[in-house]
């Protein structure tokens, strides 16, 4: 029996190709995602392993301020170096300094992308403890001499002996005396690395020669890493710890996983899931149609004595086979997708570590199992239906099209949709904690309900959407509309694939549009200045605080305030701090102060966003312990509460409060208010005069700044669109496949139409029309669903993500509709051509 199924699959292989393609693409994306994740993980792994290769133990501060975005660890006392050196079993000790340092090229522009770190460090003489190798020149010996990594030298067009500027963030003139590689690579990923001798690094990066960032230790022969770390820990002062090199590597990996890889992987898997879901619809549809077309064959098998179970088994075996073949093929497609994704992230400025793709048996197993299962599950319903065919059907000229829609479907679909919509509405209106989760569950239910109800809507929708067709293309149009109406289940299932893809696109469009509008709205409302000096958005560029001071001193400028970022433990948990000169800040930014005053924020005072204060029951006058990375903890008093946390974040402290604890004092943005009577243009020119010598950060007008404040969202949305394109392509192929199968089924009708005088052009126009109706049905459904769910999520997240402005970007949504219509036309091209080429005689004679 199974052999019959496999033979029959082989005979029908052309018709199965469509289903295979859908699985193929879905599995390609899934395995591509997994391969990319694995590759990045492996590359980071080996990078960290190389970096820590000769290091048996690291001595460092035990205090870590860990926010979700990054973490800070304070420096330790230089005196610790002597203690470490005295421990038995220590072969070599290297005090190490590491911090932020932006290398400039000859034009004064920063080297390195916006993502990877830009490091200033101390050069370690012992090659066993240094992952960098000198390939040219020598190690730095005097202040102002540096070694840079070869990658940074290449991209900045710097050569041995050149002089340039390093900003830590204070600009220092440096002379390149050595070029180094990281192992044999040009660098540690895309990281730029500039190394001084130890005293210079201590002075420039840590601001004091009695501190180091960490101490790297090499064990003597016969002493294990664990043994060494244990001995070190016995002599170290409190607040300082030693860990093994292996632990350090593991920590590095965990950090990169938590900060970046984990979310990247989850993000990509969501899209792989969407692609597979869309693919599942295509498979379901293809197998349904094939099962219907095969009713007679199935009935004949039954009449000849095959049991229902045998028939079901045979049909399931067939879909398993399709799934397996397509999944294996998809695995190879996945490698191509992984390359593509890598290129994509590179194009959007990710700067991922290079290296070949990592392909493990685990990935192959996951991809093949998931792909085959999805196919088999999608094939269960059609197979069950086909196996229920009565044997007598073999003797009848059976109608292959079921057009009834059951009561059960109506109740189930309606119920699901109703509950889903209610949940979304509830979440949108209450906006409390957990609202987003409720909205998400509601969204899934609504989608499921719409899919179940699809066949009910297909007929009226086709009537409405197809209404203009008869007027546009006469009889061909009428036939197109009627064909779209004739099998609502097929039309709905075909459209559903597109609906899911378009729905997600619309949802993202609406949500991103609203988020962008909300950010711009609140930034626009609170930013009262005229100019802003900014550094590249991701990964934190930095400005010398002196820039703000010097700009503030310009006669064209009334006030300039630099905003820095820090981290500390506030009231028990790690939080990001915003650091600013409060008096200046109030002149340029309107934070919407609700209580207290920001202008006089003292060194033992802080200001909180109202949201944070409310969440913790803090109020004006509350005393909160604030712990810094340097292990000092002081009580701070809440001196002000403010509304707008888009610019100032949740916690705001004065520069005076932060400076004593800061390793490097950096500004991330400077806001400028132009003096009265001075044209903004003139002030901008003056400001540029100062910034040109400071790494050339961007100087933006108010309008530009507000517009760019949500710039990251556009880049993200770009990536999302590219990823979702795949889902749309799968849906397109689903439509093309359904049409091709329908045409095959209607060969006789098409032959008749040709016989009674339909021209080829009319046939093509008819099939195009049908495709258009299906595609527009799916697209309109998807856009409607996406906008509604987008609205629900935006409202539900109004509190947590501050999406207080809802916008449905009309232009983009109209674009999505156009894309849907184009998809319809594209999908019909091949089937239409085939239909028009039918041999009339054979078509009429066809069974």
């Amino acid at each position, binding site marked *: 029996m199974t052999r019959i199924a496999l033979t029959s699959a082989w005979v029908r292989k052309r018709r199965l190709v469509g289903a295979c393609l859908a699985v193929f693409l879905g599995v390609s994306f899934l395995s591509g995602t997994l391969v990319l994740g694995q590759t990045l993980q492996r590359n980071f792994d080996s990078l960290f392993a190389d970096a820590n290769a000769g290091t048996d133990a690291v001595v460092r501060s035990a205090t870590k301020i860990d926010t979700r975005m990054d973490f800070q660890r304070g420096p330790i006392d230089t005196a610790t170096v002597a203690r470490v050196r005295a421990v038995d079993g220590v072969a070599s000790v290297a005090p190490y300094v590491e911090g932020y340092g932006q290398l400039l090229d000859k034009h004064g522009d920063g080297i390195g992308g916006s993502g990877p770190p830009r490091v200033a460090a101390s050069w370690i003489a012992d090659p066993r403890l240094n992952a960098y190798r000198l390939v040219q020149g020598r190690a730095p010996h005097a202040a102002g001499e540096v070694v840079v990594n070869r990658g940074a030298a290449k991209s900045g067009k710097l050569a041995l002996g050149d002089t340039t500027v390093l900003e830590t963030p204070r600009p220092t003139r440096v002379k390149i005396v050595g070029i180094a590689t990281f192992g044999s690579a040009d660098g540690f990923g895309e990281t730029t690395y500039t190394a001084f001798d130890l005293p210079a690094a201590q002075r420039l990066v840590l601001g004091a020669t009695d501190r180091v960032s960490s101490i790297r230790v090499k064990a003597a022969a016969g002493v294990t890493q664990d043994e060494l770390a244990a001995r070190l820990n016995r002599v170290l002062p409190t607040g300082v710890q030693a860990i093994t090199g292996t632990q350090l590597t593991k920590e590095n990996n965990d950090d990169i996983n938590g900060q970046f890889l984990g979310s990247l992987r989850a993000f990509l898997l969501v899209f792989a899931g969407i692609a597979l879901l869309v693919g599942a619809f295509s498979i379901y549809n293809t197998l349904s149609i094939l099962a219907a077309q095969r009713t007679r064959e199935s009935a004949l098998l039954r009449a000849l004595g095959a049991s229902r179970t045998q028939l079901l088994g045979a049909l399931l075996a067939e879909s398993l086979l399709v799934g397996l073949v397509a999944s294996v093929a998809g695995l190879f497609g996945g490698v191509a997708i992984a390359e593509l994704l890598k290129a994509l992230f590179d194009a959007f400025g990710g700067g991922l570590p290079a290296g070949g793709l990592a392909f493990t048996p685990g990935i192959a197993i996951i991809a093949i199992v998931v792909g085959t299962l999805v196919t088999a599950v999608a094939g269960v319903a059609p197979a069950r239906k086909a196996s229920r065919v009565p044997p007598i059907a073999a003797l009848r000229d059976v*109608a292959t099209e079921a057009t009834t829609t059951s009561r059960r479907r109506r109740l189930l679909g309606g119920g699901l949709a109703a509950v889903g919509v209610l949940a979304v509405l509830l979440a949108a209106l209450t906006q409390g904690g957990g609202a987003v989760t409720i909205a998400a569950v509601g969204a899934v239910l609504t989608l499921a309900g719409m899919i179940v109800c699809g066949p009910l809507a297909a007929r009226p929708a086709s009537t409405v959407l197809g209404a203009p067709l008869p007027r546009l293309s*006469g*009889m*061909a149009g*009428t*036939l197109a509309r*009627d*064909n779209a*109406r*004739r099998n609502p289940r097929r039309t709905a299932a075909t459209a559903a694939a597109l609906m899911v893809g378009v729905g997600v696109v619309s949802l993202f469009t609406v949500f991103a549009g609203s988020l962008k509008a909300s950010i711009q709205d609140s930034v626009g409302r609170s930013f009262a200045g005229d100019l802003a000096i900014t550094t590249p958005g991701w990964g934190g560029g930095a400005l010398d605080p002196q820039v703000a001071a010097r700009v503030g001193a310009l006669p064209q400028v009334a006030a300039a305030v630099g905003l820095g970022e820090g981290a500390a433990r506030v009231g028990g948990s790690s939080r990001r701090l915003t650091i600013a000169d409060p008096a200046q800040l109030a002149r340029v930014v309107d934070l919407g102060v609700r209580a207290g005053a920001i202008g006089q924020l003292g060194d033992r005072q802080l200001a909180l966003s109202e949201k944070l204060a409310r969440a913790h029951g803090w109020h004006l006058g509350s005393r909160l312990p604030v712990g810094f990375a340097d292990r000092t903890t002081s009580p701070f008093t809440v001196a002000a509460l403010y509304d707008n946390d888009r610019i100032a974040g949740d916690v705001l402290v004065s520069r005076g409060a932060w400076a004593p604890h800061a390793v490097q004092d950096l500004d991330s943005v400077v806001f400028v208010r132009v003096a009265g009577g001075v044209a903004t243009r003139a002030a901008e020119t003056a400001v540029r005069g100062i910034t040109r010598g400071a790494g050339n950060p961007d100087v933006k007008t108010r309008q530009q700044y507000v517009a760019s404040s949500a710039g990251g969202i556009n880049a993200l949305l770009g990536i999302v669109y590219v990823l979702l394109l795949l889902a749309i392509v799968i849906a397109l192929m689903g439509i093309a496949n359904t049409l091709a199968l329908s045409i095959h089924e209607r060969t*006789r*009708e098409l*032959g*008749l*139409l*040709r*016989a*009674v*005088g*339909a*021209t*080829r052009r*009319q046939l093509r126009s008819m099939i195009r029309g049908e495709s258009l109706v299906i595609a527009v049905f799916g697209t309109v459904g998807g856009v409607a669903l996406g906008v509604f769910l987008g609205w629900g999520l935006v409202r539900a997240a109004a509190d947590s993500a501050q999406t207080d402005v809802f916008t449905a970007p009309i232009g983009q949504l109209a674009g999505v509709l156009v894309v849907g219509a184009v998809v319809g036309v594209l999908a019909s091209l091949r089937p239409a051509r085939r239909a028009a080429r039918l041999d*009339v*005689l054979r078509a*009429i004679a066809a069974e």
Partner: protein
Amino acid sequence: MAPDRVSAMSYELSDGARQRRSPNTNIAASAHDAVKVYGAGENAVRALDGVTVDFEQGRFTAIMGPSGSGKSTLMQCVAGLDQLTSGRVLVGERDLSELSDRALTLLRRDEIGFVFQSFNLLPTLSAAENITLPLALAGRRPDGAWLDQVVTTLGLADRLSHRPTELSGGQQQRVAVARALVARPQLMFADEPTGNLDSRAGGEILAFLRRAVRELDQTVVMVTHDPLAASYADRVLFLADGRLVDELSDPEPERILDRLKTLTEGVAP
């Protein structure tokens, strides 16, 4: 084509004098030395092997012959559904071999009507829509009086809004006949029109085809293997092995059967 135009072509009409109606000398369609070869080389089959025949306007012609005799091929070639290997087919004065696919399509749409064995109605359209389909494809409005006449004659007046699945086989075939007639074609072809019908429904269809010839001045060419069906025609052509071997005028079933017997005996050695 204007009814008074006389074709210059010669034609044979062995039993012409016995026609009940005044003989009409117009030729609706003709085949000249028609040859149709399927396949190539050793596998080549000559489905038509030099057939010359005229179909006069206003007459009901039946084509008979054993299976494989080429009767369907002849009809399909004359109807512009298939192309000859050599020879000519004229419909009116047009040589079909010189027409493009589009011109052939328009010819079929405007001047030829078809009735098939298996009805071939579009399931999505109502009976009325199926009937007017060729006109709709041409973007023309039906001639109301003519449509009424056709529909009434076929007894379909109260079935017009039904879909094909709601009609009996006989009714479906009557819809197909109405569709073939509605554009007032020069020629109407019927390929085993009663093959899928019971004898009563079949008789109705045949009677109607004859009325279409007598009363509506249509030209009908029918392929059949049923002597009873052929007896409704004015003239029966017999084909064997791709050649025209015999013909009868105003045939009766018994005579047709006799001829068929001699034909098959002649074929068998």
